[in-house]
């Protein structure tokens, strides 16, 4: 019988993967931080647990699929106009490509316990006020499949 990882381990691995991209200047958080911890920085990423799908398919082949919500966020504009709504859309689109690239690059590692995917391939965007400033958020549903370690 193999031993499953905990969902926290999978979430930490996701945080490490996106932190390594060095693009989310405000930080990659494995939780939703206080507004004051974001401090107006941009871009920022939150990774939160969405749920677990435990498949029972046989004695030794019962993979767990952890689903996480990945919030990729960009500040909409600044009073000094060093950031504008138009530039924010460009930033969001660039980050969207990076997120999908990371998942694609880590979706079939043989012999690895962690295999990434999308639970729903369609991301969605909306606005979120943080500390009185408007952020554009793009949400992805990313899965991590865990076949357990021997």
């Amino acid at each position, binding site marked *: 019988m193999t031993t499953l990882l905990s969902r926290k381990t999978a979430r930490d691995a996701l945080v490490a993967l996106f932190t390594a991209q060095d693009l989310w200047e405000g930080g990659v958080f494995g939780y939703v931080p206080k507004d*004051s911890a974001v401090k107006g920085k941009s871009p920022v990423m939150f990774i939160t647990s969405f749920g677990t799908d435990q498949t029972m398919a046989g004695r030794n082949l019962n993979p767990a699929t952890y689903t996480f919500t990945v919030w990729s966020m960009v500040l909409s504009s600044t009073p000094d106009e060093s950031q504008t709504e138009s530039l924010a859309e460009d930033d969001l689109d660039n980050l969207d490509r990076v997120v999908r690239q990371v998942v694609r690059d880590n979706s079939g590692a043989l012999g690895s316990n962690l295999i990434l995917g999308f639970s729903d391939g369609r991301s969605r965007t909306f606005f979120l006020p943080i*500390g009185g*400033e408007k952020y554009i958020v793009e949400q992805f549903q990313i899965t991590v499949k865990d076949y357990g370690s021997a």
Partner: protein
Amino acid sequence: MSTFNGLGTATYSTKRPPAYASNKRGDPVEFLTGVSFVSVMPADISKEPIKTSDPIQGQANVIWEAYAEKQSHVESSVTVDQVPDIRKGDFVIDEEATEYHVRRVEIWPLTTATAGFLRLILEEPI
């Protein structure tokens, strides 16, 4: 002696997030120093500070208010004499190094240069 002079016994500083550069915006940096303030006080007439809950995350905050007036202080290492330039999104740091997030700024009259004062609504996460 002006209205708040006798009450403005606290000295606070502020931080402001820097300009966007290379598609990123980093940590807030020191912006104002040596600003005389009427110490933060509960933003309510009741005995306890208002506790609020962020409508989206449910994060609990305590809401304070503070007052300052047109005065000589330091802005980005330059001495100026005006109503302190503070805006929503800045951070006010008190004498105990507690950081408050500025959520609302009310200036009267509507200018930062001529005689006037400002009332800040500050948020402290708990």
